């Protein structure tokens, strides 16, 4: 087995473990192949996902979940519960300056942050992935044209295009923010997908399939895309991490989803003004954001290294 050092970035936490054995297929061996760091990170991501799902369920079905109250409910006005409380059985992470339950806000904040990140991933994987695979396979003028467009969009420094696009909309609902970030996510995914499609299309069996006259769409979906997906998935984790920070930056400038819907970023933004009185409403969302971004990066890296090892094994 050859070295994986030709990938740009690899984390020493995980590479050695991968190199030790064959790359397994199937779910259980897949899980078993995870080093402990990846397992922890995955569990954290699952919890985050569950929190977002829970918040969505509450939102859609108007139900109650244990430990969760309305994230905007002002416990001071209605129950005379003081603001800026410490943790208690009632408020697991205390209350903020508006006497709202910080834990509930954190969970609800997950809804926005995760939804924005997942929308970006969905746009990127589906549209960017398809587009990139397609042009990577068919090449020619279409490729030149589409990649030129991708170059243009990537020619804008990150955040700047987003700032301008977000200001076009007068109301910044979750849908608007997700859609804008989603659309902007297509270009980088296209580039990654194309690169991988190129190398997949050059593999002998793919060339052979095309030589014997297999329909292009069949080749695309049977041969190219399956080879692009693993690399793209690994990229998706790292990209989702970036999106989470970007949403936080927008919120820090007061330009993310508008209140009262909490997001991690807007919680940081709002808590900052009161950090001298009560720093915890600032710490919790910051920590959760860092953990999640960290987990996404770690898992993404691991998948990258895994793919690289697999690709190397195939060559």
């Amino acid at each position, binding site marked *: 087995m050859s070295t994986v050092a030709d990938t740009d970035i690899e984390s020493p936490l995980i590479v050695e473990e991968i190199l030790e054995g064959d790359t397994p297929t199937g779910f259980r061996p897949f899980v078993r192949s995870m080093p402990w760091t990846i397992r922890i990170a995955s569990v954290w991501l699952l919890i985050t996902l569950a929190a977002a799902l829970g918040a969505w369920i509450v939102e859609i079905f108007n139900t109650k979940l244990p430990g969760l109250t309305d994230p*905007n*409910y*002002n416990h*001071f*006005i*209605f129950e005379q519960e003081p*603001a800026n409380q410490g943790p208690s059985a009632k408020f697991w992470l205390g209350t903020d*300056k*508006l006497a709202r339950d910080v834990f509930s806000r954190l969970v609800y904040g997950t809804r926005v942050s995760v939804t924005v990140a997942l929308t970006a991933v969905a746009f990127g994987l589906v549209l960017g992935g398809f587009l990139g695979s397609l042009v990577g396979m068919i090449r020619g003028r279409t490729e030149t044209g589409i990649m030129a467009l991708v170059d243009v969009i990537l020619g804008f420094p990150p955040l700047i295009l987003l700032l301008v696009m977000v*200001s076009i909309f*007068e*109301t*910044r609902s979750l849908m608007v923010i997700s859609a804008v970030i989603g659309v902007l996510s297509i270009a980088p995914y296209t580039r990654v997908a194309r690169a991988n499609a190129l190398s997949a299309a050059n593999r002998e069996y793919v060339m052979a399939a095309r030589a014997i006259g297999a329909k292009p769409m069949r080749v695309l979906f049977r041969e190219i895309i399956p080879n692009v997906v693993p690399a793209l998935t690994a990229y998706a984790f790292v990209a989702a991490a970036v999106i989470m920070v970007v949403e936080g930056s927008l919120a820090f400038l*007061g*330009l993310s989803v*508008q*209140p*009262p819907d909490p997001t991690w970023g807007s919680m940081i*933004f*709002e808590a*900052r*003004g*009161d*950090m*001298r*009185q009560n720093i915890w409403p600032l710490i919790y969302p910051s920590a959760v954001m860092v953990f999640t971004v960290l987990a996404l990066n770690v898992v993404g890296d691991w998948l990258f290294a895994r793919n690289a090892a697999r690709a190397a094994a195939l060559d």
Partner: protein
Amino acid sequence: MKKSLMKLLALLLAFGMIAAACGDSDDDGDSTGTTAAESDGDDATTTAPPTTVATQVETTTTLPEDTVDYGGTVTLGLEAEATGLRPWEDSCSSPCYNMFIAFFDKLFEINSDFQPVGWLATDGTPNADFTEWVVTLREGVTFHNGEALTAKSIEDMFAIQATGAASGGAIAASGLGSVAATGELEVTYTLTRPNSAFLAFLTRSPLGMVFEPGAAAADPDGFADAPVGTGPFVIDSRDVDNETVGVRNADYWLADDDGNTLPYLDEMRFRPIPDEGTRLSSIVSGTINAMQTLRQGTIRDTRDSADGLTLYEFQGNNTGGGMFNTLVPPYDDARVRKGLIMMNNQEAIIDALGGTGISLPATQWFSPDSPWYSQDAADAWVPFDPAAGAALVQDYLDDAERTDGKAVGEPLDVELSCPPDPSLIAAMQVFEQVMTASGVVNVTITQFDQATHINTALGRENGFVGEHEIHCWRWSNDADPSLGLNPEFSAPTPEIAAEASEALGVAVPFSPTAFSNYWDPEMFGWLAAAVQTDDFDERKALYEQVMLRLADQVPVYYSGHTATLIATTDDMVGLNGWTTPDGTLGAGFPAAEGRWHRVRFTG
């Protein structure tokens, strides 16, 4: 004056007022009132004031004699950058005022009784019906470029002011028609209508700030970064958004009581720091040695970290709150307005702003310290009573005639909108919570950036009705109640202005900044009458009637009065206790607008 010109000027005023009236850091207000230390007694909820809060008179008696320490640099952290330093063109709010007053002098200042007193002028006398004001200028004052200040300067200034974006509005609002030099140092202001409060306009930017008209005419654009005035500091350099530096004006006309020329400081550096948290960090860390703020939360935090700082707090006449667009259903029904205001938990909102013990709940445009304050209006103001409020709204919902076109019994849909500022967002969410809890209102919260916020309220597209529903707003009372109240409650649309002019038989000015769109001919009459007399009691009675009407018809609602703060390191004195040239005590530091010419370091 031609009506169309009046309209134009009113519109220009709109822009000036807009920047001042709303949102983020803007606060165009010479507030009247006294220092926090003095007002503490009136406020039962006030926490113990920190020991370092300065009072207005304290240091005048502690000035050590014959030991004048010249020199030193004050670096003042401002909450926003001044767009430009052209008094006729750039609208100027509290942070910018600190800069303006350093580079320019005003014709009149406000004394501690909140009366205009001479500054660059020595005297201002009206004729019998307040349509003509003769102002006498001080002798021997020169501009930074060596030109002498004469009556001709003021006349030439007016030519520039007439077309200025900021001054045009003030000219319209004051009723100023022409300015003529009627002597070497005598200026005659001729008004188009009586205005007994005209001198108040000369205590403020844009009309009161004296700039060198020659330099302004020669390079109007360049003046934005290179102002020429008569002020205590001369512009040295200006790096927009980083630092603007003024150095001591060696030829300043004013001396202290012992005859030492002012100012004492070598340098004033103005540094805009938009982030409230970093501004406070900057003074605590010693990066800067003075700062100003209009945010209650920052005042609270500054009090907490007051070690080594002197705090100059001011409970001003600025009133924060919001307004309804009363031309748009359902807000055209007073039951809805009143019902919603009953859900406005002032205490909780002030707390959300961080202002508990700092900011007083407001019941009118005037703070309890103001001479214009009316106890009757305070008693008449809508109490916090969500149940009664819900009942009022329910009454509207069950009305077959309800104006919003919905089926009887259906809940109200309202939109609450503020600019994206953390403390405004917090306040908005408190209001939203109580409204939602009433069960009769569905609330949507929106956050528009400043430009959009104003545009939706201006509503040029729909005859100045606007698209807004409930908007965050802040009123500042300036030097005289008429400055804020008249434009807010003049005819809100050109159409109404035309109809009213015909019906009342007098020219009713249209005011695009009448954002609540509330038109009340009777109230307009009171407001007009109040600027036709200078009898204080008569005027006060008229303004009391206005406040009572506002409490009854509630086109606007209040949260709290805006407390303001200038903090300096405690090796500095002189921000309080400054006097006007004739020796009366000045107004201090209202709206966090510092007069830095007497500030000095105490070794």
